[in-house]
């Protein structure tokens, strides 16, 4: 099978580059942040490579096929998140020199307690973000090798945990840059060639007119692996395993597992969770209510725009930039690379609506990127293109989940531990604990992923962004730009924002989401939870008498432009004045790789 060969080739390429990259670098700190001699373009490709996850590669197209043009806001938010990072975070944090969010929290607010809270939030967001990656793995491996869903989840979870635990591939800039190009070719080339082959977008009526998705001329066969709740938009007759049935319009039924056959031209039943829309509705980017209501759209834009900076695996990549201005230059290039990638997922959503209607029946629209090429282009051409998308999907979920797992394991073994005050520990012991943390950190998300097959990848990812936007975004923005932030304020704000965001998410999971404004707000709570977090953080800080020590030095370290030679001057001042000056923090002059 060609697709399986492509997946193996991509994995082998990554491992080969990883070995080559490891031979290039010498010390462990070099390994962690890669060689800092890499150019902004390499850096930008590596950052984009780690960022483009299963949600971008599979999820946008899948959700777009299901919900329509309203999903187009998602890639805009995903890309614009780096704009927020550029405006507020990239250069100051690079100068400051903290590797992780808990590091930043403790150094800025001089409080080990903040580190612990930040560590807990890192674990929550990281776990949330891992689940959809593993779901993508289950779908992709299933599509390539024909295995059940759980096989892919377990296999990739084990593979990623093993590579992270053994220290392979992580942090190597060239591997992540390579993954970016695998993903971009994997989504762009098939999309372009399919459009050429089909002569443009097919069946305009179904996409943008008054038509529903229908079975093609030869009828439609859907193999249902499990019983499936569906809604019939029109009265049709169908058969399952040879037995004939009729369903009236608007009927809701549970189809048993088996071979479902729909006659030519029949409007396809739509699985639970999807909605039956004709083309005109489907193509509307904003509707008055439901999952495309303005409240939901704005909330999603807020979550993605402000949440990107708070994803645990993003910031560590910025330390491969030599200084603040280089971090800015790299981020602008990231915006370009992400923009290039995000032109293509929508093509699959549109083609999928016309050409793979069986995914509406099974509810697995998330696999449209994998299934579409062969459905649209029977024969060798489609098979080759399917191999490309499978390889890209594999690159997407493995690169993101290894990045996430490195952050999770690092937090489990380092921050949580250090919060309890166990700093000077032998490196061998630390390595051993990191390995166990990698295995343990993968276990819980993998179990959740096994149970979460019915949830859309992009919905899960949207929640991770909402949580990040309601906790770490205010921590960064206020911590970097406002001297008045205190440890107590930061903790209260993160707790309040995290609580509001997660109660909305839990409410949506437990109760059926209703298509009201309130339902939309619960399903994507960022527009409420982000202001709550900011206001709490500011309010509590203002009433907190206890200011963190050395805020001015921290501010200088964050914002002082490079090349002023302040370190030398400061050292001189310190030798002159006998201890009357405040203690200068080590982070001001610390450079990763030089310690």
């Amino acid at each position, binding site marked *: 099978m060609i697709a399986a060969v492509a997946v193996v080739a991509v994995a082998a390429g990554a491992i080969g580059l990883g070995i080559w990259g490891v031979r290039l670098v010498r010390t462990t700190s070099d390994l962690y942040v890669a060689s800092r001699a890499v150019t902004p373009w390499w850096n930008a490709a590596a950052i984009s490579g780690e960022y483009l996850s299963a949600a971008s590669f599979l999820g946008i197209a899948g959700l777009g096929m299901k919900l329509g*043009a309203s999903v*187009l*806001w998602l890639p*805009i938010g995903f*890309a*614009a998140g*780096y*704009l927020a990072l*550029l*405006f*507020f975070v990239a*250069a100051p944090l690079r100068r400051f020199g903290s590797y992780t969010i808990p590091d930043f929290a403790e150094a800025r607010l001089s409080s080990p307690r903040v580190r612990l809270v930040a560590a807990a939030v890192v674990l929550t967001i990281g776990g949330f973000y891992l689940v959809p990656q593993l779901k993508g793995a289950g779908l992709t491996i299933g599509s390539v090798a024909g295995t059940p869903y759980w096989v892919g989840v377990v296999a990739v979870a084990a593979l990623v945990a093993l590579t992270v635990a053994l220290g392979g591939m992580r942090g190597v800039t060239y591997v992540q840059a390579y993954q970016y190009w695998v993903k971009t070719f994997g989504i762009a080339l098939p999309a372009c060639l399919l459009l050429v082959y089909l002569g*443009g*977008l097919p069946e*305009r009526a179904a996409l*943008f007119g008054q038509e529903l998705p229908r079975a093609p001329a030869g009828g439609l066969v859907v193999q249902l692996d499990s019983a499936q709740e569906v809604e019939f938009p029109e009265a049709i007759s169908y058969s399952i395993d040879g037995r004939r049935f009729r369903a009236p319009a608007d009927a809701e039924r549970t189809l048993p597992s088996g071979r479902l056959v729909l006659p030519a031209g029949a409007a396809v039943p739509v699985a639970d969770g999807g909605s039956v829309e004709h083309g005109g509705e489907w*193509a*509307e*980017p*904003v509707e*008055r209510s439901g999952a495309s209501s*303005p409240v939901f*759209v*704005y909330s999603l*834009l807020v979550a993605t725009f402000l949440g990107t900076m708070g994803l645990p695996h993003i910031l560590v990549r910025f330390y491969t930039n030599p200084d*603040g*201005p280089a971090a*800015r*230059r790299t*981020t*602008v290039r990231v*915006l*370009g690379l*992400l*923009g*290039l990638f*995000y*032109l293509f997922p*929508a093509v699959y959503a549109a083609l999928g609506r016309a050409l793979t209607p069986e995914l509406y029946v099974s509810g697995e629209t998330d696999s449209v990127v994998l299934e579409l090429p062969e459905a649209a282009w029977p024969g060798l051409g489609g098979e080759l293109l399917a191999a490309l998308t499978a390889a890209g999907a594999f690159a997407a979920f493995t690169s993101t989940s290894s990045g996430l797992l490195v952050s999770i394991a690092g937090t489990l073994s380092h921050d949580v531990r250090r919060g309890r005050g166990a700093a000077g520990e032998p490196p061998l012991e630390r390595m051993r604990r990191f390995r166990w943390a990698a295995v343990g950190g993968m276990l819980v998300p993998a179990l959740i992923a096994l149970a979460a097959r019915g949830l859309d990848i992009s919905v899960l990812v949207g929640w991770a962004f909402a949580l990040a936007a309601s906790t770490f975004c205010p921590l960064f923005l206020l911590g970097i*730009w406002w001297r008045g932030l205190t440890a107590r304020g930061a903790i209260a704000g993160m707790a309040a924002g995290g609580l509001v965001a997660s109660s909305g998410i839990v409410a949506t999971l437990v109760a059926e989401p209703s298509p009201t404004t309130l339902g939309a707000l619960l399903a994507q709570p960022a527009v409420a939870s982000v202001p709550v977090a900011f206001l709490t953080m500011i309010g509590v800080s203002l009433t907190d008498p206890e200011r963190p020590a050395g805020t*001015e030095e921290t*501010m*200088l370290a964050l*914002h*002082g*432009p*490079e*090349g*002023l*030679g*302040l*370190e030398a*001057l*400061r050292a*001189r*001042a310190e030798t*002159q*004045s006998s201890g009357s*000056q*405040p203690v200068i923090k080590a982070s001001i002059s610390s450079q990763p790789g030089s310690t």
Partner: protein
Amino acid sequence: MNDAAGRRQRTPREELAEGTPHGDVYLGELIRSQLRLSLLALGAFGGLVGSLPLLFLLFPSLQDIDALGVPLPVLILAAPLFPLIVVIGLLYQRRADALDEAFRDVVSRE
């Protein structure tokens, strides 16, 4: 560099490095100017993209305009915003670097 001669005038750079009240004023000025720029850029992006959902909602007839075979709002969301984001990012980056440069010039005057 032992200026035993007494209280020589400090340079701005020394004020910054030693964290004197003067130094803090310099630094505060830089932070404020950078923050102003960031908020301006945020406003530009937010105004452009943030107005789109309302625009599409208030003028549903936009949906009937055919642009390259797709409804106009769909085309707007699918492609041109990405280059626009890059342009905003590039303009911001140039201005932010220039502000840093200006600050370096000011405090490096001996």
